[in-house]
């Protein structure tokens, strides 16, 4: 058995909704029927057959050879099996996924991992705004699973996150972890302004002291935290990071006291500041 592979013929002429292409929907489906699945969202009604050449037979492993910023909702609702995209994707990749593994080798657009509840989403490049966040009108963002961004994340990463782990390895935009309900958001690299803005509970872990923090966060010292060691070891053991994020000495802010105030920003204290 070889992975079921969708090779992109040419850049798509319009935005596509790729949510029908997940292992559970394709299991046992004939290639002929697969090619009839509609992906285009305009009146042109583009199908799989129009856009991709299909090869392979193991629907438990999907591969997209070639991606595009117009690939929306890749792996949306994924619950088992794996999907790998060799290229970029558009908005809402892995939205509401509950299991399985989604790997995007390029960049992802906004709302990647939106409201995901389980499984693992790994983005090799950068992610757009509202990583893991809810769509307008939804009450909670990411509620479980692991979301790794090896590049940089846009604004509002982890918006309204409730559970699970997000790790971003090359910094993020403004308002990282805004409105967090709980969960863990780890960011290596520079973060933009006001991380943890209006967070209720949850942990934001940074590899450096945050600049431009909301005044409603208060310093809560430099406690000895076993949790910091546990996180560092986990990130390395899980292949997310190669070096410790927090290291031996950490500082902590409590907040956001504009709301519940039970959240925290734990950051690595640089050697020179100890």
């Amino acid at each position, binding site marked *: 058995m070889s992975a079921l592979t969708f090779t992109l013929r040419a850049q798509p002429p319009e935005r596509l909704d790729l949510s029908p292409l997940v292992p559970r929907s394709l299991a046992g489906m004939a290639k002929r029927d697969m090619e009839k699945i509609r992906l285009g969202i305009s009146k042109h009604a583009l199908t799989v057959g129009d856009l991709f050449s299909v090869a392979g037979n193991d629907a438990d492993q999907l591969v997209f050879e070639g991606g595009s910023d117009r690939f929306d909702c890749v792996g949306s609702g994924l619950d088992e099996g794996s999907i790998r995209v060799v290229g970029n994707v558009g908005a809402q990749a892995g939205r509401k996924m509950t299991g399985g593994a989604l790997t995007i080798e390029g960049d992802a657009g906004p709302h990647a991992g939106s409201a995901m509840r389980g499984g693992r989403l790994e983005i090799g490049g950068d992610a757009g705004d509202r990583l893991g966040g809810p769509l307008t009108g939804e009450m909670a963002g990411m509620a479980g699973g692991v979301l790794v961004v090896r590049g940089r994340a846009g604004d509002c990463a982890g918006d309204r996150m409730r559970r699970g782990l997000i790790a971003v390895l090359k910094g993020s935009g403004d308002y990282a972890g805004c409105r967090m309900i709980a969960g863990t958001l780890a960011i290596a690299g520079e973060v933009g302004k006001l991380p943890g803005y209006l967070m209720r509970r949850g942990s934001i872990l940074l590899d450096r002291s945050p600049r431009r923090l909301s005044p409603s966060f208060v310093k809560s010292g430099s406690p*000895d935290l*076993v949790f910091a060691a*546990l996180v560092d070891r986990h990130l390395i053991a899980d292949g997310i990071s190669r070096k410790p994020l927090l290291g031996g000495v950490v500082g902590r802010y409590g907040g956001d006291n504009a709301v519940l105030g039970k959240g925290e920003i734990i950051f690595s204290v640089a050697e020179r500041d100890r």
Partner: protein
Amino acid sequence: MQSMNVNGVAIEDTFAEAFGMRATAIVITGPDAKWARQAAISMTGFATSVIGCGCEAAIDVEMDPAETPDGRPGCRVMMFAVSTEELQKQLQNRVGQCVLTAPGSACFAGLDGETQLKLGAAIRYFGDGWQISKKLGGRHYWRIPVMDGEFLCEATTGLTKGAVGGGNLLLLAGSSEKALRAAEAAVVAIGKVRGAIMPFPGGIVRSGSKIGGKYKGMIASTNDAFAPILRGVIASALDADTNAVLEIVIDGENSDAVAAAMKAGIKAVTDLGSEMGASRITAGNYGGKLGKFHYHLKDLLP
């Protein structure tokens, strides 16, 4: 009774009779080995016998930083009881009073099992609303703010229903000094066996018991057949040369651990020899009708 002889030590052809128990294990870590050990010692104090202590518990092994979940020195503690409810109660009380309170400690599950016992999930209420729940890599932890920082405790630990309690060796010697020397050698050897603990003080019991007694309400009373000063007065199990007997009681995560521990103990005692230590090794049983697990000494010879 027939016996075999190894290095001058007679080993009787008898068996130890042991019972099925419920067991759990936790890993306690600390800022250094001393404080990890101290938390473990406090937690396993007054846990020698289920008869009077509710559970039997002791340190299984000390762990290097590389072996523990948080990379600090630690101890694996095992705890045995006769029912799941009692084990849960003892675990909660002992971790709450002895591990939570010890400076710099953290506490992790030490056993995988289908059934789970509450660990941090019971102690979290100490946090009075400031406790923090964290899930990482499929494991669930509670963080409780305390005066020296934070007590981190895994939410649950595993329970095994396949544990065995009451494996034993009786070491007979010409003097109490020799008996103690033999018992200490056995304790050192058994201490290296993973998954087996010796819950009595320093691993050694001097007041072996029989079931019941002449007084109403006594669950256990002195093992008169092995008490040297009663030799000749009653039907004694001791020969004329024996002046002291010490017992090693062993609880194991499973039957194999108990057998391995007894084997290690017999080897240590026979290696020491009869000149320096015990002249005879035997084991305690109740005729084989009460306990499900029988360990024949002849199968455990070095």
